[in-house]
C-alpha cells in the first residue's frame, strides 16, 4: 500500500534555498489555514440552516478550547495521547504503509504497563517507572512491528491486518483485566491492581496537564529528525517512493519496514503507558478510548509530517474540549463537533489540490530573484 507524499519529490531532488524555501513553507501554511476558514464557513451555513448562531458557536469553541488557561489545559490534556497515536500512523506511512490499528498497541501497551507495575511492586519508582515504560513500548513495538513483518515477509496487507489485530488486542485486554490480571478488589470496574502513588505520573510543573504531553511533543520532534535528517529516514523515503529502486540500491527494505512499524507501535505503546500511569492509575477497559482512530485522521491531515502533527492534534483536541460547552450553552447535540470536524477536515484535504496552483508561492519565482 502506497501513500503519495505530494511534496516529496521536490524536496528530495533539490533542497530549496533562501526565499524559495520560505515561499514553499508559506504555501504549506497559508493553504491549510485558508481551508480551515472555508471549513468554518461551510459549517456556519450548516448552523444557520439549523437556526443557530455561528458567531456564538465559534466564540464558544474558542473560549472552551483556547480562550482561558483552563481551556488550554483541557485541550492539551486531550492532545497528549493523540500526538503519540498519530506517530503510529505517520511513521509507517513514510514507507508507504497505511497502518490503522494503533488502538491495539495503545491498549496492550497500557495493559503491559499495568501488569509491570504489579510485578515490580516494591521496586523504587526511579527504576519501576522506566521499566513500565519500556514494557509498554516493547509490547506496542512487537504488536505493530508484527504488522510490518507480516507485510514484508508474508505479503499480508497491513491495513486489514492492523485493523483485525486492533480488535484482537481489545479482546485480549478485556480478557486479561477481567481474568488473570484482575484485582479482586476492583469490584464494579474490573482493573489491574492500582498503581502505588509513587508510580503515578503527575502533571507538568505549574500546569494541570500530565507529562505525556511533553513526551508526545519530544517524540514528534525526534521522529521528524529521524525522517528528515538521518540516512535511515532518507532510505525510508526512497523505499516509500519506490520499493524496487530501493532494493536495487541495496537498501534493507524489510528491516526498514519492520523498524518503522515497530517504532510507530512503540510510540502508541507509550501512549498506553501514560493513560495508565498518568490518568487511570490501573489498566482497564477505559484504555480503548478511540485515540488510535483519531490518530489516523491527525496523521493524514499532517501529511505524515511529525512536526505538523503537533498543531493538528492540538486543533482537534481543542474542538473536542469545546464540545461540552457547546452542548450546554446552545442546546446542540454532542455530535455537532463531529460535524464541524467533518467539514473542516474535508476542506483541508480538498485544499491539497491547490498546492502548486498559486504562482505567488512557486519556488521558481523566488529562486530567480535569488539568482539560484
Amino acid at each position, binding site marked *: *500500500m*502506497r*501513500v*503519495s507524499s*505530494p511534496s516529496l519529490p521536490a524536496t528530495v531532488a533539490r533542497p530549496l534555498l533562501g526565499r524559495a524555501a520560505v515561499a514553499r513553507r508559506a504555501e504549506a501554511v497559508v493553504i491549510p489555514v485558508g481551508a480551515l476558514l472555508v471549513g468554518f464557513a461551510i459549517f456556519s451555513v450548516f448552523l444557520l440552516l439549523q437556526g443557530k448562531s455561528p458567531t456564538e458557536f465559534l466564540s464558544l469553541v474558542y473560549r472552551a478550547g483556547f480562550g482561558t488557561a483552563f481551556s488550554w489545559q483541557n485541550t492539551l490534556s486531550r492532545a497528549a495521547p493523540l500526538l503519540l497515536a498519530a506517530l503510529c500512523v505517520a511513521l509507517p506511512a513514510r514507507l508507504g504503509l*497505511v497502518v490503522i490499528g494503533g488502538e491495539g498497541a495503545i491498549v496492550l501497551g497500557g495493559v503491559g504497563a499495568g501488569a509491570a507495575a504489579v510485578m515490580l511492586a516494591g521496586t523504587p519508582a526511579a527504576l519501576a517507572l522506566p521499566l513500565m515504560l519500556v514494557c509498554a513500548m516493547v509490547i506496542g513495538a512487537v504488536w505493530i512491528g508484527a504488522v510490518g513483518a*507480516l507485510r*514484508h*515477509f*508474508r*505479503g*499480508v*496487507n497491513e*491495513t*486489514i*491486518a492492523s*485493523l*483485525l*489485530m486492533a*480488535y*484482537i488486542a481489545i*479482546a*485480549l485486554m*478485556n*480478557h486479561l483485566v*477481567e*481474568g488473570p490480571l484482575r484485582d479482586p478488589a476492583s469490584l464494579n470496574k474490573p482493573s489491574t491492581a492500582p498503581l502505588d502513588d509513587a508510580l503515578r505520573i503527575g502533571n507538568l510543573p505549574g500546569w494541570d496537564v500530565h507529562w505525556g504531553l511533553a513526551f508526545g511533543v519530544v517524540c514528534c520532534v525526534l521522529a521528524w529528525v529521524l525522517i528528515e535528517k538521518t540516512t535511515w529516514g532518507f532510505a525510508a523515503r526512497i523505499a516509500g517512493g519506490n520499493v524496487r529502486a530501493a532494493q536495487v540500491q541495496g537498501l534493507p527494505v524489510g528491516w526498514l519496514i519492520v523498524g518503522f512499524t515497530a517504532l510507530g507501535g512503540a510510540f502508541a505503546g507509550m501512549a498506553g503507558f501514560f493513560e495508565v500511569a498518568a490518568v487511570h492509575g490501573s489498566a482497564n477497559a477505559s484504555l480503548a478510548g478511540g485515540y488510535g482512530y483519531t490518530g*489516523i*485522521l491527525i496523521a*493524514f*491531515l499532517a501529511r505524515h509530517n511529525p512536526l505538523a502533527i503537533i498543531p493538528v492534534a492540538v486543533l482537534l483536541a481543542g474542538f473536542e474540549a469545546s464540545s461540552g460547552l457547546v452542548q450546554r450553552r446552545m442546546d446542540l*447535540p*454532542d*455530535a*455537532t*463537533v*463531529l*460535524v*464541524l*470536524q*467533518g*467539514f473542516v*477536515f*474535508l476542506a483541508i*484535504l*480538498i485544499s*491539497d*489540490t491547490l*498546492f*502548486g496552483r498559486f504562482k505567488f508561492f512557486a519556488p521558481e519565482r523566488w529562486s530567480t530573484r535569488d539568482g539560484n
Partner: protein
Amino acid sequence: METDLGLWVIPLAIIGGAIRVSTPFLFVSLGEALTERSGRINLGLEGTLVFGAMSGYAAAYLTGSPWLGVFAAAISGAMFGLLHGLICSLPKVNDIAVGIAMMILGMGLAFYFGKPFVQPVAPNLPSIGFGWWSDVPQVRAALQVNVLFLIGAVLAVAMWWMFRSTRVGLIVRVVGDSTDAARAMGLRPALVRICATAVGGAFAGVGGAYLSLYYPGSWNEGISSGQGLMAVALVIFARWNPLACFGAALLFGGAGALGPTLQSVGVSEGYYLFFAAPYVLTLGVLIVTSSPTRAMTGAPGELSITK
C-alpha cells in the same frame, strides 16, 4: 415451546448468525468492491453505513414504509459516495484521507439528525420463513431470512457476472487497472470512478438500513460498532471478487455467533477470546493465503492501497 437441541444448537446458531449478521457486511463490501475495482478506495463507508441506518429508520418512521426507508438510505448513501468521488477527482487529493474525513462527517450528521428518531418505533423490514419444513422452533427462527439478504446474494452473483462478462464491468475494470489505458480507449476514468463510488455508497446505505430496520432493528448511536470499517477490510480479504465478498460476509457473521452460543451450551470461560474469533479467523486465513512473492491476484492496478 422450544426444543432442547443439545450441541446441535451450535451449528444452527452459526447458520442463523451468518444469515442475520452478514447482510450489512455483504452490502458494504459489495459497494466497496465496486469502488475499489474502479481504482478508488473509500474508507468512509462506516459513516455512510451509520447515516444510512439513521436516514432509513427516519424515513421508515415518517412514511410508515420500511421500503421507502431502504430507498432513502440508498439515496443518502449515493450522495455521500458522490461527494467522495467528486472530491477525489481533484488532483493530489488523497482518497484514503478523504474517506476518513467522510466517515467522521457521516457519523456526525447521522448522530446530529438522528436524535429525534432514537425513541420512536419504525416498521421493520419483512422476512421470509424458510424453515416451514421443520417443526423445531429454533430451526424456523434461524431460517427467517430477510429480503435484503436475498437481494444481497443476488447482487453478489450479478456483480460477479457483470465484472466477468459485461461491457460495464469491463469499463470499470480497465479504469481500475490503468488510467492511461482507459484514456487510450476513449473512456473518462474520473467519471467512471465517481459513478462507481456513488453506487458503492448507495449499497453501503442499504446495509445501514438493514441494521436499523431489521437486525438489531432500531436506531441508536451505537448501532454499527465498526462494521463498515471491517467490511471495507473484508474486500481485500475477498480479493475484490463479489462472490468471495458474499462468502467472507457469511464467514464473519457466522463466526460472530460463536461467542454467545458457546456460553449457552456451557463454555462460559474466556468469552472475550471467543468474541474475537471472527477477527482471528480472518487474520489466519489472510496470512495463509497471502504470498510475499506474487502481488495480490485481482488487485486493481490503480488502487492506492495495493500499489
